[in-house]
């Protein structure tokens, strides 16, 4: 197990190295003069040369690369071209909003999606199945931003016009000192994120559950005289968890790298919003930082999913 983990961690590090190399060279060959971006349009040629020397941009590419990797390993991803703040602290400032959004969203979409999937699969073709399928279809076909705009209109704009505040328009409030304020501000983003994603999980649960409930060991469970609740939840749901965990790992990792649309709609200053600003400003160190962060979450979630597999499925042990 330890050997397995060590192997996975080494492999993850290798992936991150390859990713950072790729991103570094991609931005190196991209057009645009970083020094001009740092100094602004009015800078003189002498200033530009000075800035290039400061940033190390005048040295050969391989030296720059070694310098970049060496610093990155020590947790230094450089400074933003725009405001000269360290990339690491810029990202760290943005993480709470993204983490809050993802954490609440995950709990909500699992709490909605899995029960709907189970209900649908328990009565295939019946009224409850059609209800569940309807939810899945609506959830899957609703673009996030449309849902976001609509919920803002209904839960913020209309009440405001009527003269009271039901939900805030957006913005992020820190968890501490008042979690209630935090949750109140996050409620609409969570609902928007959860509703569309819950449809994916409902569909996945339904499909898996339908398959599992036809398995021989479910028949064995019934033949033992177990109650239907135990048959469905202990024997049926248990076997559907594995693919759900895979999907969940991938989804969480992707979102932690920045939930761009939702952060934009609700004005959440998260990682996704940071990435959008950085791309607009061609702020390379930040872009590289955000890409590496996303990559980090993905390899991390893969390792966690692998460990969960071992815990969930005795055949993998």
């Amino acid at each position, binding site marked *: 197990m330890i050997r397995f983990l060590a192997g996975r961690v080494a492999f993850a590090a290798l992936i991150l190295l390859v990713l950072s190399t790729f991103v570094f060279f991609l931005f190196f060959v991209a057009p645009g003069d970083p020094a001009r971006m740092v100094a602004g349009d009015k800078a003189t040629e002498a200033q530009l040369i000075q800035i290039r020397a400061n940033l190390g941009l005048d040295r050969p590419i391989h030296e720059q690369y070694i310098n970049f990797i060496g610093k990155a390993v020590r947790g230094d991803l450089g400074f933003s071209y725009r405001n000269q703040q360290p990339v690491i602290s810029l990202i760290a400032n943005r993480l709470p909003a993204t983490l809050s959004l993802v954490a609440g969203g995950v709990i909500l979409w699992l709490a909605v999606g899995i029960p709907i999937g189970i209900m649908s699969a328990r009565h295939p073709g019946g009224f409850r199945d059609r209800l569940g399928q309807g939810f899945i279809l609506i959830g899957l076909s609703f673009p996030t931003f449309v849902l976001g705009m609509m919920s803002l209109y209904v839960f913020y704009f209309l009440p405001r016009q009527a003269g009271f505040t039901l939900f805030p328009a957006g913005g992020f409030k820190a968890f501490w000192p008042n979690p209630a304020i935090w949750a109140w501000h996050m409620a609409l983003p969570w609902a928007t994120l959860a509703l569309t994603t819950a449809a994916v999980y409902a569909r996945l649960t339904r499909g898996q559950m339908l398959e599992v409930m036809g398995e021989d060991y479910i028949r064995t*469970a*019934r033949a033992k*005289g177990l109650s239907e609740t135990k048959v469905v939840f202990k024997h049926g749901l248990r076997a559907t968890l594995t693919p759900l965990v895979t999907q969940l790992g991938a989804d969480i990792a992707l979102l932690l790298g920045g939930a761009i649309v939702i952060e934009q709609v609700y004005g959440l200053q998260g990682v996704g919003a940071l990435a959008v600003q950085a791309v607009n400003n061609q702020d390379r160190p930040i872009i590289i930082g955000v890409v590496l962060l996303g990559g980090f979450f993905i390899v991390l979630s893969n390792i966690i999913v692998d460990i969960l597999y071992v815990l969930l499925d005795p055949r993998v042990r």
Partner: protein
Amino acid sequence: MLEARHLSVSIPTEDGTIHAVQDVSFSVEAGGLFGIAGESGSGKSVMMQAILGLLPFADVTGEVIFEGRNLLTLPPRQLQKLRGARIGMIFQDPLSSLHPYYSIGAQITEAIHAHEKVSPQAARARAVDMLTKVGIGNAAERFDSFPHQYSGGMRQRVMIAMALVLNPPLIIADEPTTALDVTVQAQIVALLDQMRKELGTTVVMITHDLGLLSNVADQVMVMYAGNRMEFGSSAAVFHAPSHPYTAGLLASSPSNYAAGEELVAIPGRPPSLLHMPAGCAFAVRCAYAMPKCATQRPPLRRFSDGVESLCWLEAPVEPIHAERAAVSGRNADATAPVVLKVDNVELSFATGGFFSKAGKYEVLKGIDIELRRGETLGLVGESGCGKSTLARVIAGLIPATSGSVLLDGKDMATLDHAGWKEMRKRVQLVFQDPFGSLNPRRRVGAIIGDPFRLHQVASGADRKWRVQDLMETVGLNPEHYNRFPSEFSGGQRQRIGIARALALNPALIIFDEPVSALDVSIQAQVLNLMRSLQQELGLTYLFISHDLAVVRQVCDRIAVMNKGKIVELAEAEAIYTDPQNDYTRTLLAASVVPPPQKGRGTRQLVETIWGAPA
């Protein structure tokens, strides 16, 4: 113990209603072993599962009395309390029937906790005790093992322990040995029999294996297309079957024949359960059919020895054996050219991965085989002995680690690309699973025509003509050229596989368990086809099977394989009459053979009970 009256089960599907069981009555006597025999689709499993409420979508009518209560009108909660506690069940495939994520022990104690209020320690002690009883050594240690860590036979022992742990008075065993190797089958049957005697449990055993039933059952019910065709004591039914279907089944079983004899097969295939015929369900395949069989529902006759038969015939049928075809000559010819020479072939796989220690897993350990033209060599062994792997090596699909495979005198290892392509024409494979080995989205004509297309032998109208010719040869209707595999039955699909194998007139055809997925009546048809094709076309066969009776029937010589080695290779009859190797003897002792039919017997018709309206 259990009494069913006029039981019918129908299952609504998208295609229409499947009449799985029709008006079946039977009674199981306490302490006995009640056998239900029938081919796939006869409704035997569906019937028992429907009785226990395991088929929620089925429409069940009639009456099933158990311990004074009608199971069919019992509320679901009451039925749930009966399951496991009063009626235990054992299923066919112990691997898929055990939950892969829970330990053996947890799955057994779960059954105890579902019905009794006991402490976890007490439940554990009982489970360990039961596991020891069914022959699991170190039960206390193996309690926490998972199903995948057990062998097939051990898993079935676990299933039996699970069914017996609450000591139910009735056990329903649904094909308990079908998924197991012959030697293991014998152990499991013996175990069931022993448990039945020790605990006084009544057993209902559902199986397609007549040999097995004839050995252990007290009473037998034979089912066909949802109908109860024959019912009576095991001795009476097997020695002198009253119903033509029972007689036909017994006659199709290759173990009742000497090597090389033509089998008496039941022609045709079972009817669709969607549209039942007005008369007897078996009429179209019956050798004794009379005009009224097709239009009128047959009466239920009772004979002096208690046998009941759903048939117009008033006397037991003549044993079919008396009329069988003469023994045909052997195909082996010691002077015929050698087609295949396998010389000291070994195969091993490297085990271990990137971070773990490398090892070697030996699959084949020095195999020598020689096959002459027109000969059939049988390769027999239990699962995991390497027989299918050997087939793939011979077919050139896996290169041997060492040793050589010579086809037509050419070494496969030294072939260049063109030579390899040529070799692919010379060796053909027919696979076990006729459902999985044909692409469901391609038309039959295209599947059979593939060899012509791939080797650029024929195209266009010429190809079509050749394919239809092949279909004719293997007994398929050439007009079905454009149909999809799903429109064919299992036996017909195996004919499709054979037709494709025949297309390029190969030097060697390897049959990998070609009939083990087929019902016994269909199996006889396919075996007869293989035999007649060999005689007509002078083909050379390598026949792989786990079934000794089948191998003996079709093969000239037999190689017995165990753990990657050939332990005995001799003439087919010699293997049976004078086995030299211990393993061969074990295999032979383990296979159960239905008794030969003795003839009409002394039974007389007592009364005719008209079947209740359908």
